[in-house]
Structures are given as structure tokens and as C-alpha cells.
């Protein structure tokens, strides 16, 4: 006999921008479908941000974050985690328990133009080169 207990969780999914460009709403539905497939009740799901990643993940320098709040049985988390890891659109996922859903999660999602996502295939902008300090040291010819 297993203990059935429903709790509220928060899941931050990092989505592949190549999939996001194909359409935001179908991708969002596909990801939230993973939760509902395991019997979870979606409380809120909204785009958190689109930003540059701290390090490249699967060759991607940028990614879109989807923040999902849901209530699910503790036993179903293993299946949710596994399906998120199998999903090719989800680069990373972080599933943590949360005491209560913040009010900001229920605010309507801002309009999101997938065509406005900057391309990350382009190399990163070179950092500004600092002005040379002092006189450059001339190479002295080596004595034979």
C-alpha cells in the first residue's frame, strides 16, 4: 500500500528555442501535457523569460523558460521527471516543491513574438578590447 499525498510543485522548464520558433502555444501545450498525462492538475503555466544561458546546453546559447505550477501526487513525480527528460524540446527541467503559488503566476501571460527571439547561432559579440596601457614592448632581436 502506497501513501497517496497531493502537493503543490513548481517546475521550471528550459525549452529549446528551435522548437519555440515553430510555435509557442503548441509547444507549451505539449509540455503541460506531460504533467496532465500523469494526473497532475495545472495551476498555472506561463513563460518566465527568454534569455541567454550561462553556458551552452546542447549547442544552444539562448533558451526560453516555462514556469509551471501544478498539484500532483507525490508518486507521480518520477514519471513526470522521466518524461520531461525524454522530451527533446526540454533542455533542462527543475522540479521543486512550493508551499503556495505566488499571485504573479496567475497574471496573464505577456504577448510573445517567437520571431523576435535573437538568433543564437550567430557568434557572441566580441568583448570590447581594452585600450593598450603603456608603450608596447619592442621585441629585441636575439643575438646569434
Amino acid at each position: 500500500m502506497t501513501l497517496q499525498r497531493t502537493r503543490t510543485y513548481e517546475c521550471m522548464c528550459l525549452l529549446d528555442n528551435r522548437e519555440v520558433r515553430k510555435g509557442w502555444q503548441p509547444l507549451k501545450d505539449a509540455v503541460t501535457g506531460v504533467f496532465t498525462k500523469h494526473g497532475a492538475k495545472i495551476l498555472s503555466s506561463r513563460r518566465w523569460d527568454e534569455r541567454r544561458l550561462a553556458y551552452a546546453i546542447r549547442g544552444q546559447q539562448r533558451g526560453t523558460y516555462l514556469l509551471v505550477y501544478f498539484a500532483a501526487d507525490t508518486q507521480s513525480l518520477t514519471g513526470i521527471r522521466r518524461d520531461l527528460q525524454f522530451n527533446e524540446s526540454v533542455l533542462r527541467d527543475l522540479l521543486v516543491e512550493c508551499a503556495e503559488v505566488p499571485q504573479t503566476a496567475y497574471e496573464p501571460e505577456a504577448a510573445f513574438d517567437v520571431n523576435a527571439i535573437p538568433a543564437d547561432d550567430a557568434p557572441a559579440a566580441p568583448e570590447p578590447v581594452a585600450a593598450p596601457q603603456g608603450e608596447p614592448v619592442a621585441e629585441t632581436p636575439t643575438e646569434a
Partner: protein
Amino acid sequence: MSNMMQSNGGPGGRDGGRDGGRRSKFGRFGARRREVLPEEPLEYKNVAYLSKFVSANGRIQSRKRTGFSGQNQRKLAEAIKHARLIGLLPFVGRM
């Protein structure tokens, strides 16, 4: 020359010092250290605030530097580690 050969250990140094390597609960003049409270919530989404407690090499600052209580320092470390996992903070180096 003989001075250069001496150990650089002192109070709070790596060689132990007066409290034998253990961190004292008291400051230099005997006053108890004042606990620093976090100004913002210590959660992984608060990247701008968390990055203040990460060194240029990406390491989490010690409790001695942050001044947090043990509970808040653990929350800080967990939040930074969560942020690293989903690509919000680097494991090594700066953003």
C-alpha cells in the same frame, strides 16, 4: 631572509591561529558577529541577487563573507545550485 621563512599564519589564518582552525563565533574584539539578513528572497529565479554571492570563478561565497545565518547560507547555496542546473548561473567563471 629569516623573516621570509616564517609561517604566515595568524588569527583566522590557514595555520590555525588562536582558535585552532575553528571559526570563532566572536569577532576580533570579542563582540558577537552580527547576522546579516538577506535583502531579497533566496530563490533560484532571483539571479541578479544570487550572482552577488558568486565569485568571479563561479564559487559560492563563504558564510564568513556573506554574514548569513547557517539556515540562510544553506538556502543560498541550494538556490545557486538550482540556478546552475537550469543554466541561469555558471558552474565556472562569470556570465
